[in-house]
């Protein structure tokens, strides 16, 4: 068991792919070529899509946006361990994970452009909408997992949150419930070292976040958050245990937010350039590319072709999002309740006559 071998209480961190892309053969997870390719291509797509979102915000075409740069492995590695019917509960900096699970990019752009339709994921993707109030989604994951256990399903919930969330009451309450009820949940803490400006060491005196699992009576593991193989391996093991009824796991993904907290933030106010440079040398995509090339699955030509295709796809998705119809007045009202109360109907009719005419655009 990786969780036994890499005990966070002893300060150990699971790492399989080092910063230069060398693999620890003894720990290399079994992954099909198709899965490796999917992982790599989604990471590259997520990077391009993320950069595009930041540019769109700067151009006034998208609202405030939380960049993912540097956290692609941390987002996509764990989600690779999910199967059909599993649930994904996210915070707000997990675009890569949602792309991997089949949410179309245009919908994610649409959300950040300010349209609720962006959270109306089609089909049975089993993904909650973003949860901006920090940590508040964690009890939801525990409840979703409870329902799985109640129906005796062999399913799991993967719940993402950040290092800041571990200070929130809902982190404690959600993990405590999951531990007590032994629900099939995998808690994935993306420790990107900062909660806006607050560095990780001021967030808690606990030497690691992973060790907090100990207090809830389940396993925790600290994982190199820029190592997609390690994140997959740790999450797969946790998910397998959860499916067998062996309860939850807390995974701390030790990563770094290379960009600002959101496009409204300026990280240079609280971070040193040397630190960012240190992490740039540990980029999750670069090292995975080296691994893929060594495995014979990737080369310069494929890289060029995929970068072009992904960029084209991103442009198409931007267009789709920008061409999406804006919400109507009815849209803003009809989803408040399953059926609209009489009084709300009256308010809707009143607004039809009372709102000033609006110029499009």
């Amino acid at each position, binding site marked *: 068991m990786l969780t036994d071998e890499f005990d966070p209480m002893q300060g150990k961190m699971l790492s399989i792919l080092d910063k230069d892309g060398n693999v620890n053969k003894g720990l290399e997870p079994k992954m099909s070529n198709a899965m490796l390719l999917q992982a790599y291509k989604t990471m590259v797509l997520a990077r391009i899509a993320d950069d595009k979102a930041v540019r769109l915000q700067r151009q006034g075409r998208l609202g405030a946006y939380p960049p993912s740069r540097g956290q692609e492995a941390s987002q996509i590695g764990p989600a690779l361990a999910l199967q059909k019917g599993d649930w994904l509960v996210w915070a707000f900096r997990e675009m890569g994970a949602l792309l991997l699970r089949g949410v179309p990019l245009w919908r994610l752009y649409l959300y950040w452009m300010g349209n609720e339709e962006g959270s109306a994921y089609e089909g049975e993707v089993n993904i*909650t*909408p973003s949860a901006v109030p920090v940590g508040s989604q964690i009890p*939801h994951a525990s409840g979703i997992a*409870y329902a799985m256990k109640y129906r005796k399903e062999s399913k799991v919930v993967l719940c993402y949150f950040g290092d800041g969330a571990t200070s929130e009451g809902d982190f404690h309450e959600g993990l405590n419930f999951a531990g007590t009820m032994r629900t099939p949940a995998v808690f994935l803490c993306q420790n990107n070292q900062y909660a806006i400006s607050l560095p990780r060491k001021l967030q808690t005196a606990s030497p690691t976040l992973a060790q907090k699992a100990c207090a809830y009576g389940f396993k925790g593991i600290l994982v190199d958050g820029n190592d997609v193989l390690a994140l997959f391996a740790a999450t797969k093991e946790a998910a397998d245990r959860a499916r067998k009824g062996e309860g939850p796991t807390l995974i701390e993904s030790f990563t770094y937010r290379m960009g600002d907290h959101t496009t409204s933030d300026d990280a240079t106010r609280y971070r040193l350039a040397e630190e960012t440079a240190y992490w740039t040398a540990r980029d999750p995509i670069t090292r995975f590319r080296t691994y893929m090339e060594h495995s014979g699955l990737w080369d310069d030509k494929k890289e060029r072709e995929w970068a072009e295709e992904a960029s084209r796809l991103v442009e198409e998705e931007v267009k789709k999002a920008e061409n999406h119809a804006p919400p109507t007045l009815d849209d803003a009202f009809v*989803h408040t309740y399953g059926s609209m109360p009489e*009084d709300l109907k009256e308010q809707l009719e009143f607004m039809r006559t009372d709102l000033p005419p609006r110029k499009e655009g």
Partner: protein
Amino acid sequence: MAAMNMVQAINLALREEMERDPSVVCLGEDVGVDGGVFRVTEGLFQKFGKERVIDTPLAESSIIGTAIGMAMNGMRPVAEIQFLGFIYPAYQQLVSHAARMRNRTRGKITLPMVVRVPYGGGVKALEHHSESTEAVFCHIPGLKVVVPSTPLEAKGLLTAAIRDPDPVMFLEPTRSYRLLKEEVAEGEYVLPLGKARKVREGKDVTIVGWGAMMPIIQKAVEALEKEGISPEVLDVRTLAPLDHASIIASVKRTGRCVVVHEAPRSCGLGAEISARVMERALLSLQAPVERVTAPDITVPLPKGEHYYYVSPERVINGVKRTMSF
């Protein structure tokens, strides 16, 4: 038919809905083995087991937060918060998630869930056990707020709340839990949410109340009748969304309106009702809308509670003020 108090009627509604639908579960502090501190869930643990009558850790935000997760994933949880005064750690879950999940996902994720909470004072309870802060929930679009006033009402309204597709706060007046018994039938009995109940017809003044205020209003009405005043009484039952139409229709007939609530005066539901009456029935009014409420002070401990709680005498005073305006 059996004569039941409100505790027994709520218990019956829970039992019947749990029998009818395996996705209905109860969760909360002490709801299982102990049967709830007010014994509302008594016997359910023994009948349905620990998976369906869940003794949770002592954590309000996770009781409502996990109920949200359960509701997202195909269940119909009925969460209990032990007293309304303890619900505030879970307020974020109610406001930021429960109330708006349907809207945020454009109907893709909905939350059929009930949060049962004993509320209100008058039972000589400890500090923080006497709150009547219904208005802080009524203010939130997407939440429904229901308050029963009698055992039979409690059964019909709770059954409707459990079957409702949206989150419902079901506030149970502790003072009325064992106040009276009435005939409550076993089997299907569902009352509509969002509809007020006309308790009695009258021609001089409309008295609007809910929950624990209804027996107090009843006493006031008996005294007023002896003085030749004929009040019409409405039990609004659902505080959000409120049945304004029934209130307006009644006030248009009587020309006077007295709203009675246990909560403090400012920004209480009485203010909303008063505003609506002004908007829709101004020319029918023969007097300003009168509010009989608690003052804007912290609920006193039992030795001073008489300074706070609404009594039949204060309702009578309110009605007479509108009659003599």
